[in-house]
C-alpha cells in the first residue's frame, strides 16, 4: 500500500492560543512493498508523522492517503477501523504495553479486536509468534516472566498478528543486544519479502543502511530530504552537521581518517566497505 502525505500540517491544540505546531507542509511518499526509514533528531516530528499513518492523529490541514483511504481533518473516528486493521504500529519499547495473562492471549488480542473468531485469532497469533522467533514453550507463560528481548518479540508478534499490509515500527531495535538487533533487522527484511510496506524510525544509521530502500529526513517538523540511503549518505558532510544527523559509523570513521590525511576514494557506508577500501587503498597502495 502506497502512503502519501500531501501538505500535511499538524498542531497540538489547533485553534487555541496554546497551539503548538509540530509538522509543517509535509509532502512525501513511502513506496509500496519497500522499507522507508524516517530519521531526524529527537523532537523533529518523526513520532507525530507515523501516528498519521493509522489515524491516531489526523492532519490539522492537508491529507494522508494510505492506498485508497484518505485521512483528513474531517475523517470520522468510525471510518478509522478499516485503516487500523491494515496498518500495524509497534511503538518504542512496545513490551511496555504487554498486558495479557499469557503470551498467546496477548498476541491474539488484535485479531479478536478486529472481529476474528477465537480459533482464527489463535492460528494468526501462533503464526506471528513463530515469525518473530518466540519458541512454543513460551506461549503459555506470562509475558512478564520473559527477558527483555523475548518481550520485544512478543510485542512485535502482537503488531503482526492481524496481518497488516503496512507495518510501522518506532525504534524497533533500541535497547536490544547485538544479536537481538540483528534478528530484528532480519525480521524487517522478511516482512518486506512478504510484500508488506514497512516504515521504521531509527536513530541508528547503520540500521538504516542495512534495511532501508528509501529515507525520509525530518528536521524541525519539515521534510528536508527523501531519497535512497546511497544518495542521502553521500551528501556533503556539512549538511549532516546542520541537520544534526549522523553518518553510518563507517562514514564517520572515514571522515576522521580524512582529518588525519588518509583520504579514501569514496565514502564507505558499511563496515565491510570501509575495510575493503582501507585494504586496497591504504594498506596495499
Amino acid at each position, binding site marked *: 500500500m502506497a502512503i502519501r502525505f500531501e501538505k500535511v500540517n499538524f498542531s497540538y491544540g489547533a485553534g487555541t492560543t496554546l497551539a503548538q505546531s509540530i509538522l509543517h507542509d509535509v509532502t512525501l511518499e513511502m513506496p509500496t512493498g519497500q522499507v522507508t526509514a524516517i530519521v531526524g*533528531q*529527537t*523532537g523533529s516530528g518523526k513520532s507525530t508523522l507515523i501516528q498519521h499513518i493509522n489515524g491516531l492523529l489526523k492532519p490539522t490541514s492537508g491529507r494522508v492517503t494510505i492506498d485508497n483511504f484518505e485521512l483528513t481533518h474531517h475523517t470520522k473516528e468510525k471510518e478509522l477501523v478499516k485503516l487500523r486493521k491494515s496498518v500495524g504500529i509497534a511503538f*518504542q*519499547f512496545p513490551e*511496555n504495553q504487554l498486558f495479557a495473562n499469557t503470551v498467546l492471549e496477548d498476541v491474539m488480542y488484535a485479531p479478536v479486536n478486529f472481529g476474528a473468531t477465537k480459533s482464527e485469532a489463535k492460528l494468526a497469533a501462533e503464526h506471528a509468534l513463530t515469525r518473530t522467533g518466540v519458541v512454543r514453550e513460551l506461549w503459555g507463560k506470562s509475558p512478564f516472566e520473559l*527477558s*527483555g*528481548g*523475548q518481550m520485544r518479540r512478543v510485542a512485535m508478534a502482537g503488531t503482526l498478528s492481524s496481518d497488516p499490509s503496512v507495518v510501522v515500527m518506532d525504534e524497533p531495535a*533500541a*535497547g*536490544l*543486544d*547485538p*544479536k*537481538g538487533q540483528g534478528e530484528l533487522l532480519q525480521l524487517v527484511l522478511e516482512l518486506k519479502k512478504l510484500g508488506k510496506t514497512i516504515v521504521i524510525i531509527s*536513530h*541508528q544509521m547503520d540500521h538504516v543502511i542495512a534495511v532501508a530502500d528509501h529515507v525520509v529526513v525530518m528536521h524541525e517538523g519539515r521534510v528536508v530530504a527523501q531519497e535512497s540511503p546511497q544518495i542521502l549518505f553521500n551528501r556533503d558532510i556539512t549538511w549532516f552537521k546542520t541537520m*544534526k544527523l*549522523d553518518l553510518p*559509523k563507517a562514514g564517520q*570513521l572515514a571522515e*576522521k*581518517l580524512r582529518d*588525519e*590525511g*588518509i583520504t579514501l576514494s569514496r565514502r564507505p557506508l558499511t*563496515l*565491510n566497505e*570501509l*575495510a575493503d577500501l*582501507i*585494504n586496497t587503498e*591504504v*594498506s*596495499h*597502495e
Partner: protein
Amino acid sequence: MTQAIKINNLKYTYDDKDTVFDDFNLEINAGQWLALVGHNGSGKSTLAKLILGLIEADNGTITVFGEQLRIDTVHHVREQIGMVFQNPDNQFVGATVADDVAFGLENKEMLSSDMPNVIDEALTIVGMQDFKDREPHMLSGGQKQRVALASVLALQPKIIILDEATAMLDPDGRATVMATLQDLKQRFGSELTLITITHDMNEAMLADRVVVINDGQLILDGAPSEVFSQYDVMHHNGLELPFVGELAVRLDPKPDGYLDERELIKWLSDLKK
C-alpha cells in the same frame, strides 16, 4: 586496596529451576569503574539485584565494604549503593526536578534547610542546575537519566550501579550521560565505585575494567583493551567489539591486539608512510 564488593561462591536459581549463577566469584576494588557486559538474558541485571539484596542468593556471600549482605544488614548495605535503571520514565516522583532530588533526601531525614545546597550541588555535577524548576516529564531521555543520577548522587553513595541506563536513549542522550559518568570518575576518583551494566561496547570501553558474563559464568575479565582483543570469545558470547575493533579484525594486515580509535588511526597513518 579497599574492596568495594566481594562476591564469593554465589549460587542463585531462578524460579527454583533455572540456575543463573553457580559458584560465581567477583571482587571489585573501591574506586574502580567496572563495566559488566553480556547479552540480554546473560544474568547481568540479576547480579545487580543480588548485590542490592532485592533478591536473595541460594548460597554464597556478597560483601559490601566489609559488611556481609544479610537480612539484618541489607538496609545499611543499600544506603551505600545508588542505582539508575533503564527506563528514564519510571524513576520520577517529584513535580519539579529539584523536588525529585529532594525525595531521596527526605527519606534520609535530612533537615530541609540543608537540602537546597545538596540539591544544587548534585544537579550542578550532572549539568542540570538550570533545569531544577522544570517538570521532569518535559525533559529529554538523556536529561532525565542525568537527573536520576543527581538524585542518586545527592545521597552520597559509595557505589553507583547503572543498569542499561543509556539503552533507551538517542545517540545525543547517550553521549551526554557517558560524558557525565566520565566527569564523575574524575571528580570523585577512589571515593566512587561505578558499575555500568551494558551490552554497548562503546560504553564499556570507557571503564577501567570489563567483565563479560554469560549464563552466569565469568567469561572474560580485564582492561577493555585485553577483553576486546578476544574477538572470537566476544562473538561466541553474543557480543561485538567496539566499531574500530570490528574494523581491525577485517583489515589486512591487521594490528596486534585491540587498538582504540585514536590508536588505530595512528597505526593506519604509519602504515601509509
